């Protein structure tokens, strides 16, 4: 009997075989705390009565939701974080470098096989490198900071196999949106999603990140890709036997297997106001938009900006429409400066902001008002997420977003 990828990762950490439903206590390789949650986690940590952090090397504080700050109380969160880091000797504080989920792999923290927890639901992103990672509340985070461990229920796995070649205007965003639509917003609750197949093998790590990132929108505990040579390049580690063993076995026991042909995918949107309300872009044609947002931990990477730039090159966004571009990290911003991507986007009329969570977290970066429509590349279109509850949010790929910005209405690339 074989093992799924999540079972292998957990078993390796706890030192014995595990099966779905087991409740096990795992050691934690990485703790990520974002700026919103820092004061709460610190308060709980202190209430719990700990006097030291289990391993200051393993804790990463990242300020991203409140950059740039829009409210006078925002910088209190930075101050509390800085003081906590100083008091307990934390080594890793990112004050202005970009979105937490981008930095956790980009800056070299999370590697294949690691177990990571973060105070944000999109912590599932690190599944893109074959790490088990998931979002938790600040009280549990405080517990981990003190003990270095957390209990988890070993999840069942849903395997998703995708084979073949994607149509030119389809990106990994369209894939994960379609899958969420098929599974529904709660269809993978408590499950691990494991993505395999030739389409997945051909994807960049960045594209996989988009899929892992949105796994939580189907309720999943994690969204995993087996690490390969591309993963190892990205993580700057050797592609050795140990890494090669990190994959779901053919004879593992899966709760469900979904099989897709890449050729069957089309550009889609998640329509207001649920992530599983999926429709083909072609059916939405003619929907007027007021704003387009390209960014977030889902789709703010260099390849996303490049995809948009390819479509926007030599063109201009529609009159009275705004396109806001928020690169996911400082590194990405600089790379997009260097290769001319930002210049193309700026020439096309995009408003390019500093790296951070931006509009996706709803505290700035392009908030909308009643009756306005936004096409956005981020991960949630919940009611009121980007302004009032009368804002219509459509989630889409960077390609669809760029084509829509030019047309001023929802359009296929």
């Amino acid at each position, binding site marked *: 009997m074989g093992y799924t990828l999540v079972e292998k990762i957990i078993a390796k950490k706890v030192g014995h075989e595990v099966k779905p439903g087991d409740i096990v206590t795992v050691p934690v390789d990485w703790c990520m705390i974002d700026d919103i949650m820092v004061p709460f986690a610190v308060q709980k940590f202190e209430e*719990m009565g700990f006097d030291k952090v289990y391993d200051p090397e393993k804790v990463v504080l990242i300020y991203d939701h409140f950059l740039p700050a829009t409210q006078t109380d925002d910088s209190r969160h930075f101050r509390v974080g800085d003081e906590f880091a100083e008091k307990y000797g934390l080594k890793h504080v990112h004050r202005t470098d970009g979105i937490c989920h981008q930095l956790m792999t980009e800056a070299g923290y999370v590697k294949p096989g690691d177990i990571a927890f973060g105070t944000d639901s999109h912590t599932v992103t690190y599944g893109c490198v074959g790490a088990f990672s998931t979002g*938790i*509340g600040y*009280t549990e985070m405080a517990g981990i900071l003190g003990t270095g461990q957390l209990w988890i229920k070993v999840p069942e796995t849903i395997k998703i196999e995708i084979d073949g070649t994607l149509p030119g205007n389809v990106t990994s965003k369209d894939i994960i949106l379609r899958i969420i639509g098929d599974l529904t917003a709660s269809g993978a609750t408590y499950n691990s999603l494991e993505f395999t197949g030739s389409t997945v093998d051909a994807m960049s790590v960045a594209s996989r990140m988009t899929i892992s990132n949105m796994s939580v929108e189907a309720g999943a505990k994690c969204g995993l890709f087996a690490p390969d040579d591309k993963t190892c390049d990205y993580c700057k580690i050797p592609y050795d036997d140990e890494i090669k063993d990190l994959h779901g076995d053919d004879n593992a026991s899966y709760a469900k297997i979904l099989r897709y042909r890449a050729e069957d995918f089309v550009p889609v949107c998640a329509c207001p106001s649920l992530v599983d309300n999926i429709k083909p872009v072609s059916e939405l044609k003619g929907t007027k938009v007021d704003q387009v947002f390209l960014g977030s931990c889902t789709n703010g990477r260099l390849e996303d900006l490049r995809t948009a730039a390819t479509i926007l090159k030599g063109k201009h966004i529609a009159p009275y429409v705004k396109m806001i571009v928020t690169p996911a990290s400082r590194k990405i911003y600089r790379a997009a400066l260097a290769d001319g991507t930002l210049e193309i986007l700026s020439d096309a009329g995009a408003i390019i902001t500093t790296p951070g969570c931006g509009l996706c977290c709803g505290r700035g970066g392009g908030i909308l008002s009643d009756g306005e429509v936004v096409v956005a590349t981020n991960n949630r279109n919940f*009611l009121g997420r980007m302004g009032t509850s009368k804002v219509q949010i459509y989630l889409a790929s960077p390609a669809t977003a760029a084509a829509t910005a030019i047309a001023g209405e929802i359009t296929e690339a």
Partner: protein
Amino acid sequence: MFSAKIWKLGDDIDTDIILPTEYLAFETVQEMKPYAFSPLRPDLASKIQPGDMIVAGNNFGCGSSREQAPEVVKALGVSCIVAKSYARIFFRNAINNGLLLIEQPDLFDEVSEGDIAEVTPGKEIKVNGKSYDIASLPDNLTEILEAGGLVKAMRKRNGLD
């Protein structure tokens, strides 16, 4: 056993509905309270009385990991939530804050807002003369709930209480 007045919500009540991002960074839960459920039902927070319960459909608490969501519900005095299913992070966060969550597949479809329920944790809920079975929680969660939440459990571990 306790009895509670029912407030009814639908499927997929996400964390941005339970507490929008705008209010997440308020220093205290007390300041957040008036904004609970505001995108969906702006007046709900002011109507909920201590001891009332929330009944909802599938996937309650989906979305972000913001623990402010269960904290604010608890701060409103909600005695328990009964839903068809829960999103997992919300579930953990609620238990860690000592907020009782009950999974029940049928009750949602058969009760109305304003009905009074009689809840016997780990056993049954009675509404309008009908009884609904409920399961008990796994041991490790019962321990946390019984300790009054994770903070208290950790304080005990650290020899403080």
